[in-house]
């Protein structure tokens, strides 16, 4: 069993597991931290951004990268269409991947890169909300980037001899060769056509060898963890899970217990920020800004926590006397996001599910839209300009502040200290996001709302699940870089977990020792068990094994057909007499074997001990006999006579009956 880690970011995982001749990919997320190095794409021409000075390595010298890099407030940014860091493609032939299992819509954004550009021809499994919301996220991403095209792509800066001369943090950017421009809508459609839907606890079959079961993870609508099982082995993959009581179905952990391997990723990115407190802080900061006559910008994703924000904020604003303040939700997929959230009732928590029977929509944003308090628009153009009034609260993308309508609002409102931008997404460092907009008069507030499991919850869960081996990203073995003194923010297990980082290939210490095989009733009736000791019966069995769809069946030996004539009869006897005379068993005594070889004239040999057994080398014959527990291999270069002799000696040395 091997595990390939194709991603560096613990919260943007992409892992490949090879198990029982099957190759399974868990998630294919995009690492968006690369976006921080790019200049924002303003929808409306920005004088300020267009007039940024070109970055020069030293005074007076022409920049080797031309106009690709710009200087903004001492920070260097790439003036090009933003690029994202895709999973590593060099350590494994991704066309051999049999199946891709998706956990949530956050971790599938790299799917078109995998399915359309690597020769992938397998199947993709995901839950229906994951498919719909994932498609929305991808379409929004493409829309944001394509609507502000850049004439010239920036490529020179990536050259290694130039990259090393660039200033920090660009110079230290990780995995630059894996940075790619975004895909297009055609890629999205093609990728989504390969997706098959799966339901919670539905048992999916992979070529008869493995079963795969998605279990609710409690993180977002439709998010799941995966349990991969054979008859005797179990692997659990946990990614982005939550133990909080929010709108998705709660996390299911029962079937995950006692796994051979537990792979854990996607823990809380802001463990020192309590989501409940952050929600309160979000509300109070918003209220203060609005009361002072300012506007609030909330850069966010079009689904997920935003539903909870609408619900809490509307109630809070009512109690604070801010009912008349409009809420705007601007996104290419705003309409579909709000609509789909109301119809995926069976993927929601029981409290929201029961509302459906009243009947009431599970989320209150439907009523907010109906009442005109929440207004959604596909973009800032068109109807929005007619209805826009301030002070207001705007929810729009992208949380990186590198593209999307949020860039426009930052340009529009950034000069006034009355306005506030509140960051709720934990995936982006808000200071890095704001860097290209400096100097900024607008107030900024960091209230990350990350419902995923924190470290103490993860440690507790690992203890409860009692897996034999735990595999985690190596970042979880040490405290976060910004909190080096917090030694409680690590994953601690006994025995210690196995870490992985990008491009690592781990051989997992799971040895398959047993496989299930069915025996036909006809053959079973021929068995004559003998009691060896109390409760233990032994019987010899000779049959023919067939493997079909990874299922092993033991059948009786085939009967020879009726023939006429002596020649054929002799041939038939050979077939009929396939039944062996002896059954050998036990381990080979290497000294006895060497002695017997010497007796049979093989004298020139060297015996070498290996960790798994022995190697007997016959230099003159250029032959190697590899003896290990459970297997013996004779490697000889076409010398059939020698091979048979060695075989016979070998059998002679083994106990038999």
């Amino acid at each position, binding site marked *: 069993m091997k595990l390939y880690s194709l991603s560096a970011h613990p919260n943007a995982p992409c892992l490949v597991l090879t198990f029982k001749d099957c190759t399974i990919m868990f998630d294919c997320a995009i690492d968006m931290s690369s976006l921080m190095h790019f200049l924002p794409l303003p929808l409306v021409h920005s004088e300020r951004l267009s007039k940024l000075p070109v970055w020069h390595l030293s005074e007076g010298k022409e920049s080797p990268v031309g106009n690709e890099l710009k200087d903004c407030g001492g920070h260097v940014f790439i003036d090009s269409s933003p690029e994202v860091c895709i999973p590593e493609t060099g350590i494994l032939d991704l066309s051999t991947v049999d199946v891709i299992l998706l956990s949530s819509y956050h971790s599938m954004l790299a799917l078109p890169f995998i399915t359309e550009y690597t020769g992938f021809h397998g199947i993709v499994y995901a839950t229906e909300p994951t498919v719909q919301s994932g498609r929305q996220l991808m379409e929004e991403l493409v829309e944001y980037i394509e609507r502000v095209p850049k004439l010239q792509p920036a490529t020179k800066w990536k050259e290694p001899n130039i990259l090393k001369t660039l200033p920090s943090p660009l110079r230290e950017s990780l995995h630059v060769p894996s940075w790619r421009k975004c895909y297009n809508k055609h890629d999205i459609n093609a990728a989504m056509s390969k997706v098959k839907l799966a339901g919670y606890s539905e048992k999916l079959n992979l070529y008869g060898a493995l079963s795969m079961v998605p279990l609710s993870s409690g993180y977002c609508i439709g998010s799941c963890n995966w349990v991969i099982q054979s008859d005797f082995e179990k692997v659990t993959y946990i990614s982005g899970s939550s133990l909080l009581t929010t709108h998705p179905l709660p996390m299911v952990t029962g079937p995950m217990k006692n796994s051979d391997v537990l792979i854990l990723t996607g823990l809380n990115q802001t463990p020192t920020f309590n989501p409940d407190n952050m929600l309160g*802080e979000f509300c*109070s900061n918003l209220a203060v800004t609005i009361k002072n006559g300012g506007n609030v910008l909330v850069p966010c994703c079009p689904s997920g926590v935003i539903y909870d924000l609408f619900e809490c904020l509307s109630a809070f604003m009512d109690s604070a006397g801010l009912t008349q303040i409009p809420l705007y939700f601007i996104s290419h997929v705003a309409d579909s996001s709000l609509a789909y959230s109301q119809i995926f009732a069976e993927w929601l928590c029981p409290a929201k599910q029961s509302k459906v029977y009243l009947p009431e929509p599970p989320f209150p944003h439907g009523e907010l839209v109906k009442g005109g308090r929440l207004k959604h628009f596909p973009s800032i153009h068109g109807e929005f300009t007619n209805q826009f009034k301030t002070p207001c609260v705007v929810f729009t993308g992208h949380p990186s502040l590198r593209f999307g309508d949020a860039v426009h609002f930052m340009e529009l409102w950034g000069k006034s200290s009355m306005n506030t931008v509140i960051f709720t997404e934990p995936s982006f460092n808000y200071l890095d996001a704001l860097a290209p907009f400096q100097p900024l008069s607008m107030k900024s507030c960091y*209230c990350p709302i990350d419902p995923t499991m924190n470290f103490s919850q993860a440690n507790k869960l690992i203890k409860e699940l009692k897996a034999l081996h735990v595999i985690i990203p190596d970042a979880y073995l040490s405290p976060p870089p910004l909190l080096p003194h917090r030694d409680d923010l690590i994953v601690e297990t006994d025995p210690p977990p196995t870490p992985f980082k990008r491009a690592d290939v781990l051989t997992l210490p799971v040895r398959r020792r047993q496989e299930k095989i069915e025996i036909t009733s006809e053959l079973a009736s021929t068995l004559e068990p003998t009691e060896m000791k109390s409760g233990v019966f032994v019987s010899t069995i000779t049959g023919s094994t067939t493997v079909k769809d990874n299922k092993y069946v033991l059948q009786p030996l085939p009967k020879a057909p009726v023939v006429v004539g002596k020649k054929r009869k002799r041939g038939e006897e050979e077939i009929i007499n396939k039944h062996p005379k002896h059954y050998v068993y036990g381990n080979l005594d290497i000294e006895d074997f060497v002695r017997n070889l010497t007796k049979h004239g093989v004298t020139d040999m060297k015996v070498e001990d290996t960790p798994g057994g022995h190697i007997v080398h016959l230099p003159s014959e250029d032959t190697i006999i590899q003896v290990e527990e459970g297997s013996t291999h004779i490697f000889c270069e076409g010398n059939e006579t020698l091979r048979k002799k060695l075989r016979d000696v070998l059998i002679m040395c083994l106990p038999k009956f």
Partner: protein
Amino acid sequence: MIMESTHIDACLKRLPDVFHLLLDSSKTIVDDTCVEKLLTLIENITQCTDDRMKLFKEDVGLVSFLSHVVTTSCEPCTMTFALKLNGILLKHDDTVQLLAAHFTGIESSLEHRIFQRALEGIEYWLDASVRCAWLNSMKVNLNYAYQVITQLECIEQIIACLVDASMFVITAAQDFTVSLIVWCYKHGMLAEREKVALVKKSQLDNGKEKHAIDEKSSRCLETHSGCRETSSSSSFIGERLLQYMTKVLRSDSTIEKPEIVSVLQMLRKLFETDQSVGGSVAMETYLLASCQDMVINCDAGVCANIVELFIVIARKTRTSDWIQMDDIIVMIMSLMHHGKLSPALKLTTTLLLEMDQQHEQHNRLYELVFLPLDFCLHPSPSTVISSSTVDFIMAAMKSRGTCISLVMHSIMALQRQCTKGGRLDDDKLCRFLKYPIILLPITSSPDRQNLSTQYTKHLLGNTKLTKFLLDLALTLCDVYAVSDDDLYQLSGVVVKMVDNPHMDSTVICKSLKTITAILRQSTSSESESGDELVAKKPRLQDTEACSQPSDLILSKVFFNILQKRSYDTRWDVRDSVINFITDITQLSDNRNVVAWIVESKLGKEVWEKLRDDDDSYVRASSLFSLAQMSLCEELWLQFMSTCEQTMQSVVQTVTNVLLHDTEAFPRRAAVDVFLKWLTKHPQIRSYLLSSNYSTYKIGHKVEEDAGESNTEHRSVFSIMLQASHDLDFEVKLSVLNFWEVIIHHYLPCFATKNLTESIWDELYHIQKTGCLEGLQSSSDDHDRVVAEKACTILITLKELIVKGLDGKDKNALTVKHKLDIKFIDFLLKTDLDRILSEKSRSVDIYEWNPLALIDDMLYSSESNDDNLLDCY
């Protein structure tokens, strides 16, 4: 309570039926409460000698009831009743004699036989209520009790009650034995013995502890024990109790822990009752030595009781002749060196308060109490404590639980020192302040960057410690004059805590109170010179430029923090912010504070919370804040300007709250606001009293369902009349306070009782407001306290009117001064005193109508309805 004789006679006539009911096991008694009330009734009857005697008449049946209890079998609850009845009768010598008169000799007197019956009847003594009643009744007359115990030889059974299964029996047994011991000493039953004290002397020699036992004392111990065995029977009971206590205290492992705890509790009660007797018993039982032995191996429960006992002893150490301060210090050291650090600190705290500051050990004990806190500030604090003790405490503080417990005790000791320990000098004050300044950042956040020593990691994020430290900081700022530098550091820490969104709401509330105290102190020393203050810059400035604590608080940064908290999702945080604004508004004599409030427009925050907040407490607090703000002219004007309000519109808003708010708290607050304006704000008072609609039409019925638009045309008096029908009694009480202020305003002689000629004109003004009609209707209010207050006011008015009428023609006067004759007639003809006494009497109907109790008991005994049986 003195009962009317008619009531008593009527009750006595029905008592035989009740006694019969109690004896009849086939009948059900409704519940225990009725039986207790019956006993209260009988006790009330025995208050008067004559009535007491009536109880013993044959037709009352009391004696036959008691006789029946003695001679026949009855329910345990009946026996309990009989014992308690016995206890009531034993309080008076004449009743004791009357009981004894029925039989000759103490041994066969009725009450004696009841005690005997209860004690010896297995079916009775097994019941905990019987045991409890037996002990409590005996305690009433200790002279009698001593004789009974001697006769019945039941001291062992009493001792057994000290470790009873029932907590109530244990308490009763302890109380009884303590009373008995005190009585024995006072009546010479236990003569003072030669003072023998077995004292373990602990000497600290080069860090080692030596225990020296007085050999002479140990020989005396043996002699003394022998003496006890030959004591006379008259002192047997006292001796037995002492012997028992000594045995338990000197016990080995054979004595169970509950027994030890009970004896220790008994001793504590003994010391609380009579210190000198306690001291004698302590010597007799070798208390000090025994406790020092016990602390070696005892568990936490026993140790806690030892410490509680010595805390009581320590309070009187100065006047005690059996124990010295040094003995208690030895006990403290013993506790410490046997790992009982928290109890040791607790005892030390008390001892420090009792100890003379000049005592040679005072400084050492002082250092000991605060050592855990010092360890949190410095890894190796300099101290006068011996190194062995220091090492011991250091080792103990490595455990998280112990560390937190010790620090908690130290903080509590500090708090007590600040409030009760006398004046602190500057060095101590500075040192005490360092603790909250350095520790609050640690206890209020899990961030390890603030750790000062290795021990403070245990205190990370501990909310309880944070609250204690804030209480300490608040006490220090309230009681002492703190240096600006310390105030500045403290304010920096506390402001940061208010800014933390993860902070507990109680911590935020305490932090804001601390900030108020800091501000009060910081601004109190500022000059009031107008010229100087005008020349000063506005207060909203960046914190980097600050050097004064008031500058840090009266800054834009803190205002932003406060504003954010005013929109916190937790109601108690919002309420704390409003209360903070109210508190600092009271510092309106300080120009800087006023300037900051004005520039920050805090009035607007208050106004918005009043109008929009969905929590009733926040709205109520906003009203109080509004009232406080109105008392400072500059703030008031700025408030009205910022909120675009006029005085009339503000009054209107408060009126709307009074009439339409769905919760009682804001409505109460609204009336209080009007009261405050009436008493303290001349301008608004003038407006309220001279309203265009101040003429109140006599007999005009207030429209109870008047909409908001109608309130604009109504005077405040008609609003108050409507509010006097509020469902909440406190609103109605506040309205009566309002009327009282109106009366005081128009009728000066209401307070002075010095009648003037103008009383009738003054009454007319009062009448115009509708006050009189309001009072009249409130005098019959179904809320008792409201009716009482209304009656009290009306009685005073009546007295004045009667005085004023003196011989004059009532009708002519009323016509001349346009007074309402109906009201005058109501006052003169209504027996307000009777109404007041009726309203004032107890809500317990049985207290003033005991016959109803007896009737109910008898009636319910016949009824089989389950509902009736559980109506109390």
